[in-house]
């Protein structure tokens, strides 16, 4: 298939380029096979401050996932099980939120975050990033919780279980696959986020990986092997997560249009 070539060849070139020296790349071009292979580019990327970016991104990602895990399950539980009309309105609001692009609110976000004294602070990146992953996570998790059959709730009701106990002993264990999708989704979004960090941080100590890539590109755009090594490094953790949570991710993505 032509399309597979269009996807595969650039990835192959990407990998190959990171393993060659810059002069070799400049002289022989990206498509030729390198004269000898080296890992120096990766080492350079790390000594160039990429390690700090890595840690910052990790902090942002972990916090976003934690926030999402704290907020979304009770919300989804209420949406699926509450009879109150208000939860219907809440659900529709979140669905609308799916279509509100981060760009649309970036100016007021800058205003709010500056006024709150969180400018150039990782927390100022974490909060909006988490907020903007809520809609999709809610959609995924309500989908999972709807698959729990009414009979199970009835059985617990007969035992006189409180909503709290139903939530812990029935809803959470049975929506495990939905939960893992939510974790993968929010982690991916936080890890790859660019706009919020670009606008809401400025110093090196709060720089995340995507910004690091962007800066690298503006400063040493010609050093393709170095630049592309950074690209590969930025993807490695995601790749690891993907290998472990492949099923959850794919299931979640396919569920978007499958209903």
């Amino acid at each position: 298939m032509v399309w597979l070539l269009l996807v595969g060849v650039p990835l192959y070139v990407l990998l190959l380029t990171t393993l060659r020296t810059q002069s070799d790349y400049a002289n022989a071009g990206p498509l030729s096979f390198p004269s000898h292979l080296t890992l120096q580019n990766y080492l350079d990327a790390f000594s160039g401050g990429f390690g700090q970016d890595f840690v910052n991104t990790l902090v942002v990602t972990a916090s976003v996932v934690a926030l999402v895990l704290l907020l979304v399950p009770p919300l989804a539980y209420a949406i699926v099980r509450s009879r109150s009309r208000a939860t219907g309105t809440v659900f529709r609001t979140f669905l609308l939120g799916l279509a509100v692009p981060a760009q649309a609110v970036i100016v007021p976000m800058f205003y709010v975050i500056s006024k709150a004294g969180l400018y150039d602070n990782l927390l100022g990146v974490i909060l909006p990033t988490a907020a903007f992953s809520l809609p999709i996570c809610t959609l995924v998790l309500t989908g999972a919780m709807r698959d729990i059959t009414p009979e199970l709730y009835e059985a617990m009701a007969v035992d006189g279980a409180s909503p709290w106990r139903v939530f812990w002993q029935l809803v959470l264990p049975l929506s495990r696959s939905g939960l893992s999708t939510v974790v993968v989704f929010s982690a991916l979004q936080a890890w790859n986020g660019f706009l919020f960090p670009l606008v809401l941080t400025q110093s090196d100590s709060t720089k995340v990986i995507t910004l690091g890539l962007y800066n690298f590109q503006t400063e040493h755009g010609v050093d393709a092997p170095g630049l592309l090594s950074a690209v590969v490094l930025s993807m490695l953790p995601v790749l690891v997560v993907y290998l472990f949570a492949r099923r959850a991710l794919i299931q979640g993505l396919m569920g978007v249009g499958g209903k």
Partner: protein
Amino acid sequence: MTSISAAPAPAPAPPAPAAAAGRRRARGGAGVTRPGLAWAAPATAFFALFAIVPLVLVAVLSFTTWNGIGSPQPAGLANWTALWHDPVMIKSLWLSALLTTLGVVVQTPISLLLGVWAAGHQRNRAILSAIYFVPLLLSATAVSVLWRALLDPNFGIPAQASWLFGDGNLLGSQAGSIGVLAFVGAWQWTPLHTLIYQGGARAVPQVLYQAAAIDGAGRVRQFFHITLPQLRNTIITSMVLMVVGGLTTFDTVLILTQGGPGTDTTISAYYMYQQGFKSFDFGGASAVALVLVVVATVISLAVVRLSGYDRMRSTVEGL
């Protein structure tokens, strides 16, 4: 499942255990406890604070002048009249529409066909779709950086394949830049839509195909008469994602073209960023942002109606 629930139910109801009865909210449904609104409150409050409030603020800010430092000053309709007469703004809307349309036109057929193909059970499918999946894991930033390096006129692929690319400066012309942006967008996003279509195609009942096969319908006819109609909702969902994604393409433009050459790829989302964070005209930027919000919301509302997402509630809620 009825056997499970039937077993404990007929037991003679105990004389209302005090603790359980107190917490129980017996609005129909045989005393099944239900979570109250309080369960939804934390997430809703958080979402309101960081998504809804800024959304309202963007409207307010569009009637002010603000340079990013100090406080916004009321400016009446100034930003809006300026926007109305701004040739770059009008051009940016056209460019957004063009890029979005290109995205839908290029990605839909490819992802539809690939998705339907991948829904089957061929050999090698797992390996092929794994390779195919990788662009989804890369951030838009990484993808843009990668392609910028690969398409560099002096050191990239064009320099080695001049028979295909001419002088190789793809980003030097408007047609070239828009082509590159459309291509890179498709490269990154087609896998996502393929997955969505794959999910949709898997959900099509096999009985329909068996019936069609008995009636002597070939593969092509099956595709047009069963697969396509059955995927109606999937197609709508996917297209909406493409439209919203296309309208808000930003990282790619910032890294690949910086809106250039000139303003030839300055789409609205990028123009908004430029006005705000480069020219420090945050009032004007808010006006552009509000236009974006309105367009995206109108499209999303249309989708929620068309795809039946808002009806999902009634179909599944059984109690």
